[in-house]
């Protein structure tokens, strides 16, 4: 599953030799994140975000397990147990703020990771499976984060749960019974809170499983790179250890500095004040908004304000909101361009920077704003571009675009005319 020049694991200590025969776990580590995995030498810093996402997942699981030790999934006390954790548990405030901001950090990292994939065409053959599994991870993350936000049982927890589960009610015929079955009642209550807690604890471990598949699938063709040219020879690659362990290592440090700054100095900046008010089914907040990482999709949901032929506006919104993510599954087959990297695709590049990125930024902004004009109209235009980008522009551009000439190899792209430069020494 690797390149022929990949380093071979050769245990020297008798114990490691014994271990390698019985259970070659060290060999697996060596070939996955050690010297046995050759990686293109020209990766830029956008390639650090996969490793950072893994760090975020670990942070969430560790802080989450500690939070769960002090939490009680019961509508009568859930809010109070969180406050008790923050006030009376040793370092409880750190775990609480770390977990809440950790979710935000995870989404920041994952959005950069996904948009790296859009720009550099990481979803293209032979890495379609890596991409598909990645979209599955993103969907699982969204489900986990949504259910996690319900657990403190504050005002936004309750009303967010009500709005989002209410979306299932838009499905024709089966919607209402389905919604009641999911909630275990007519509105979010103790039954819903309990099952959300159960699933919120389960899904992260499902994510771990899919992450393992994601990395496994990645290691079959090997990592992509900013030129999009496949690896041709040994001089194109460096071993993961020590080269990318060192690069990821300092990137983790830089990430941790930003994360710590948020946790220790602005822990509530990304949260909604209403979630410090205990849930009250009799009092609807003025503006119900989800957490910031759902805003683009929430904006798409709310952008459909008119019935479309026989389809009610609400159902259109629900279809579009899920469709906006599901369309990512089809990217490998929508984008037919033989060139991977956006750097060598002049037309696609323009649509990426001046179309997709601004549209996404506008959707982010409008999703967090009140559902009033002009925000609804602006988000309608941005959502229109979003769907046009993936479903119309991308297939058409990839058919008619004339890409720039590609470098012969990664080595040539890196060294250019610099003939005297040394190649990577084999570790």
């Amino acid at each position, binding site marked *: 599953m690797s390149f022929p020049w990949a380093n071979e694991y050769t245990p020297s200590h008798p114990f490691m030799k014994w271990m390698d025969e019985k259970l070659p776990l060290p060999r697996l580590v060596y070939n996955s994140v050690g010297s046995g995995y050759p990686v293109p030498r020209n*990766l830029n810093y956008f390639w650090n975000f996969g490793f950072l996402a893994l760090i975020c997942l670990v942070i969430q699981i560790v802080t989450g397990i500690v939070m769960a030790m002090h939490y009680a999934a019961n509508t009568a006390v859930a809010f109070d147990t969180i406050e008790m954790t923050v006030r009376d548990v040793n370092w409880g*405030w750190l775990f609480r703020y770390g977990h809440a901001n950790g979710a935000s950090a995870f989404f920041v990292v994952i959005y950069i990771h996904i948009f790296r994939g859009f720009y550099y065409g990481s979803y293209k053959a032979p890495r379609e499976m890596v991409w598909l599994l990645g979209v599955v991870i993103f969907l699982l993350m969204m489900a986990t984060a949504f259910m996690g936000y319900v657990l403190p049982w504050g005002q936004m927890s309750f009303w967010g749960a009500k709005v989002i589960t209410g979306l299932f009610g838009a499905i024709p015929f089966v919607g209402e019974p389905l919604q009641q079955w999911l909630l275990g009642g007519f509105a979010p209550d103790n039954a819903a809170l309990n099952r959300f807690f159960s699933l919120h604890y389960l899904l992260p471990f499902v994510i771990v499983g899919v992450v393992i598949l994601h990395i496994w699938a990645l290691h079959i063709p090997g990592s992509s790179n900013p030129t999009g040219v496949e690896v041709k020879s040994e001089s194109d690659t460096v071993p993961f250890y020590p080269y990318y362990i060192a690069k990821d290592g300092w990137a983790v*440090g830089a990430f941790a500095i930003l994360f710590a700054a948020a*946790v220790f100095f602005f822990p509530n900046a990304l949260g909604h004040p209403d979630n410090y008010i205990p849930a009250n089914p009799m009092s609807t907040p003025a503006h119900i908004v989800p957490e910031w990482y759902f805003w683009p999709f929430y904006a798409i949901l709310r952008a459909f304000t*008119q019935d*479309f032929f026989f389809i009610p506006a609400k159902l259109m919104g629900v279809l579009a909101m899920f469709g906006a993510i599901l369309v990512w599954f089809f990217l490998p087959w929508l984008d037919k361009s033989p060139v991977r990297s956006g750097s060598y695709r002049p037309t696609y590049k323009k649509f990426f920077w001046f179309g997709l990125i601004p549209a996404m930024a506008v959707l982010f902004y409008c999703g967090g704003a009140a559902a009033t004009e002009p925000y609804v109209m602006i988000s309608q235009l941005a959502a229109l571009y979003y769907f*046009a980008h993936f479903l119309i522009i991308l297939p058409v551009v990839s058919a008619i675009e004339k890409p720039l000439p590609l470098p012969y190899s990664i080595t040539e792209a890196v060294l250019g005319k610099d003939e005297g430069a040394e190649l990577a020494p084999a570790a």
Partner: protein
Amino acid sequence: MARILSILVGLFFTVALAWSFGKGAYTQITEPPAATAEHEFHLHPKEVHFASDGAFGKFDRQQLQRGFQVYKEVCSACHSLSHVAFRDLAQLGYSEAEVKAIAAGFTVPGTDPNTGEANTRPGTPTDYFPKPFANDIAARAANNNAVPPDLSLMAKARHDGPAYIYSLLTGFTEQPAELLKEFPEAKTPSGLHYNPYFANLNLAMAPPLAADGQVTYGDGTKSTVDQMAKDVSAFLIWTAEPKLEKRKQTGWTVLGFLLFATILGYMSYRNIWAGTKH
């Protein structure tokens, strides 16, 4: 085939959005939304600073004690503080004996040890602040059909919380003449009080800090309405975030260590990649 299918799906969503946009724009032009009094007269909180602000912020314990006094003598008549225990008051600089005395000054619900019937007893440091009303119905009955909210988390439960509390407490005024001229139907109903810092401009709470000198401070600070409002806001920052100082102090230690570790990490990265063009 895949391309044609995708373009058709794309057209389905984009045309539906264009339709929603067109209808929305038409409605905006033909029936522009009417202005509301809330929209035009609601004010953002005033700018106000506290010792606990900023990355090096620390509580001013004298101020917290004054704020606690305002809560005890004014707010606690209607507002609960259910997440705070008397023992927590030691953090404001009160001695063990003082905390005991403060707790004993409150009456908390208890159980008669002989009959098992509900009764009341003086508070002890482990008790939490008692609620002023038995339940929401009692609270509504006594407060013009509004439930006075719990104050423990108020500084975090509103946008720009501490400044909001301060602005609300000092913001009660007569309803402006322009408002009544422009929106005659928006006259403050009887039993409510006009306050431009409140979301819908009229709230059930009467101005709680009505006159200078309402509370007599032990430390000689002049108790103007402005001073009392500031002090009680500072106190509520503490009740909402009692670990604020520890959080910020720990933050600097953590940042210092991370900076050091990151510099080492960066240097080893440079060292390992030296001589490898990439």
